[in-house]
């Protein structure tokens, strides 16, 4: 027996390899990123993997490969699906030949996301089947089921884990590879692969028929299950199912259980579950998908079973479920709340002491701190709006930097700045964007600004990586996911070719030069851009120099360095500033701030 501790995303990757995936593509996004990284690391012969420039590109490349008969996996986070929704909606009407699985990781909480959207609902809207695993080991086998389902139906399939599946881990038993049909290549057939209204109408009928077939078939699918007996029932899916199982064992009151891991809903199994039930509690995250299906089924069957969940206010409508939250809801539902208190109560539970919050911050030695601070200093006293974007630099909004006024979605900073300026032409409108985001969806916004004559200042924060998601390469890094060399695309040259003539590049750690560049841009007109260059501190050890130190005899204790930069290595101890030698990377950004020159050491860059 070959057992291994696998993170959910590793299990999905190994499951896809086992299922014979040939092409794997995606764009990084928490909590999905480790799937492609694992496929690349495994580096199996015959499997191609890439970080595409964005999710739409990834999905379209996957569509091409699947049309040519290859098994394709496309990975992204839930908001990435919004970017890829155009090709996915249409692709369902054309269909695929090789199995195509679109893995979309949802993020209840949210823990690292802009939205709490539910990809199961997207599946219903786009008329696609969805597989929803509850654990790493289930995800490992379910991804093969998803490929098979895609090939049997000839349509793309969604695979929707959530953060607590992607980033949880478990002992997983590794299995032999499944039999998968081999690629046959693309066969020309314009009646099949070219989307036209007539074809769409004909295929719409086929899609609906396919979904009806799946709703029936999924009642026998091993991922959906029913157990127990009684007049009360608990329905669940995803990681909440594990919370239900854990509490069910501890509470020890018999009831019926239903696990649903598919869209379309397994209607026959659902009807059997509802038989003889007075009440049902539904424990699921994000949208009340299972709850609605059960309510509809009650209406269809003409039965009076009471369905309790998010819609009825019995479960929280937002945020992630927790094992104790689900247990509490189950105890209330089963009427055991008072007889069966949670055992092993914590000592501290009675009066929890106040513990200071520790929100995420820009790292010590992060080049973005220098860029933000330079813009802040240069724009002091001026009316200015700072549009941000998605990445580590979103953390620039935190005090004391406080340098982000807006953040919406990937690539929106550059375009929103144009709208803001249209309404308030007397303001300076800055748009901060990272290098990977620039390639993802930033470029069209720049083209729009130049074409339509908008007055904005673009600040590209180029740290040579996709930092927030763990340091993935992108077109500006000269490397691919598979580790091959690639042409290194210059953001400077791209901006130049678009027609951004007022263009500067500056070392993000050089405060004086950075401030001068910003001041220059502020005095000019039209579309101006400054590229702040500085490698991400997490990329390599070579970025770490000798730590700075505070000469306590010279330090006046004014705490300016602590209050202005928000560097996690800086704090105030007694009457002197203090630099944590382990955290400090010696970037020296704090040195010019000190009037008494008390900060010494570090490396000059």
């Amino acid at each position, binding site marked *: 027996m070959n*057992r*291994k*501790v696998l*993170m959910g995303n590793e299990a999905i990757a190994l499951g896809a390899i086992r299922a014979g995936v040939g092409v794997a593509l995606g764009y990084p996004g*928490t*909590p999905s990123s480790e799937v492609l990284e694992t496929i690349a690391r495994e580096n199996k012969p015959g499997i191609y993997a890439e970080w595409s420039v964005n999710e739409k590109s990834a999905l379209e490349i996957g569509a091409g490969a699947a049309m040519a008969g290859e098994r394709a996996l496309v990975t992204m986070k839930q908001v990435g699906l919004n970017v890829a929704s155009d090709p996915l909606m249409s692709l369902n009407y054309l269909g695929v030949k090789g199995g195509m699985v679109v893995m979309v990781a949802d993020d209840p909480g949210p*823990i*690292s996301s802009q939205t709490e959207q539910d990809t199961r609902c997207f599946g219903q809207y786009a008329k696609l089947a969805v597989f929803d695993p509850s*654990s790493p080991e289930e995800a490992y086998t379910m991804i093969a089921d998803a490929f098979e389902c895609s090939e049997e139906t000839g349509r793309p399939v969604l695979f929707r884990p959530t*953060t*607590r599946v992607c*980033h*949880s*881990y*478990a*002992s997983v038993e590794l299995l032999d590879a499944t039999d998968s049909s081999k690629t046959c290549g693309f066969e020309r057939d314009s009646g099949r692969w070219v989307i036209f209204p007539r074809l769409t109408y004909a295929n719409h009928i086929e899609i609906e028929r396919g979904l009806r077939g799946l709703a029936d078939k999924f009642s026998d699918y091993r991922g959906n299950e029913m157990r127990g007996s009684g007049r009360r029932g608990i329905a669940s899916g995803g*990681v909440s199912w*594990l*919370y239900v*199982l*854990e509490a069910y*064992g501890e509470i020890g009151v018999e009831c019926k259980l239903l696990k649903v891991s598919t869209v379309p809903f397994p209607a026959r199994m659902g009807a059997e579950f509802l038989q003889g039930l007075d009440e049902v509690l539904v424990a699921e995250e994000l949208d009340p998908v299972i709850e609605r299906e059960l309510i509809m089924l009650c209406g269809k069957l003409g039965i009076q079973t009471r369905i309790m969940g998010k819609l009825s206010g019995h479960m929280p409508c937002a945020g992630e479920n*927790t*094992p*104790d939250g689900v*247990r509490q809801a189950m105890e209330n539902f089963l009427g055991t709340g008072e007889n069966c208190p*949670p055992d*092993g*109560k*914590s*000592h*501290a*539970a009675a009066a*929890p*002491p106040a*513990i*200071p*919050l*520790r*929100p*995420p*911050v*820009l*790292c010590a030695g992060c080049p973005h701190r220098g860029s933000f601070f330079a813009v802040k200093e240069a724009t002091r006293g001026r009316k200015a709006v700072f549009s941000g974007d998605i990445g*580590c630099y979103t*953390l620039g909004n*935190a*005090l004391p930097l406080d340098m982000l006024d807006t953040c919406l979605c990937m690539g929106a900073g550059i375009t929103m700045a144009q709208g803001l300026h249209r309404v308030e032409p007397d303001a300076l409108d800055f748009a901060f964007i990272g290098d990977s985001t620039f390639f993802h969806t930033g470029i069209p916004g720049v083209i729009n600004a130049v074409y339509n004559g908008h007055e904005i200042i673009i600040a590209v924060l180029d740290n040579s990586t996709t930092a*927030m998601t763990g340091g993935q390469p992108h077109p500006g890094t000269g490397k691919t996911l598979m580790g091959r060399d690639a042409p290194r695309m210059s953001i400077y040259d791209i901006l130049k070719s678009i027609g951004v003539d007022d263009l500067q590049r500056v070392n993000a750690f050089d405060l004086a030069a950075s401030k001068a560049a910003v001041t220059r841009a502020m005095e000019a007109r039209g579309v101006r851009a400054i590229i702040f260059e500085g490698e991400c501190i997490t990329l390599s050890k070579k970025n770490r120099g000798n730590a700075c130190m505070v000469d306590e005899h010279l330090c006046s204790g004014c705490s300016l360095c602590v209050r202005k930069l*928000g560097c*996690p290595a800086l*704090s*105030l101890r007694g009457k002197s500033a203090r630099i*944590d030698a*382990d*955290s400090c990377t010696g970037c020296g950004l704090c040195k010019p701030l000190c009037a008494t020159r008390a900060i010494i050491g570090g490396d000059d860059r």
Partner: protein
Amino acid sequence: MTNCLIAGVGGQGTVLASRLISSTALECGLNVRGAETIGMAQRGGSVLSHVRMGKSIASPLISPGQADIVLAFELCEAARTLRYLKADGLMIACDRVIQPASGYDPAAMLDILRSSAGRLMVLQSEAIAETCGLRALNVALIGAACACGAFPFSVGDMERVIDTRFDAERSKMNKSALRFGETLASAGRNRRGNGERHGDD
């Protein structure tokens, strides 16, 4: 079933620590399940790794009041994680202080730990830093936990896992940190009142 929580600040190596513990438990024939904090919080925020080891485990998350052992790599994070500890659970904390933006008083935080934790062992981060380097603080605390019999495996079991996971140099470094943590804990246990404290002492 053993429920272990590992608390720290993003960048302190909680993920590696939980991987080492869970891999060793697997090697010893147990099932494991757990969850990591990965994403935005890794940028210097509070991070928490859940590790559950036993025969049959459903949830990857440990509920408040259910942890048998908490390993805390930072003082304030130790206090934050107290609510997860069982009444008779063991808290092994390190007195390393990484100040969040709002700041805190380390002495007050230590008082919270002393008055609340069932069994508490506080290890000196300076001693660990001098001997092993702060990078190996995570492994040193695992060594201390092993010495307290907190895990369903021995230091030797973990050394074998370390050998398979790292190159010779890093393996040597991690094993010496593991043994140093073990020594610290044993010394602390012998010096009553200075090391492991019982709530009712």
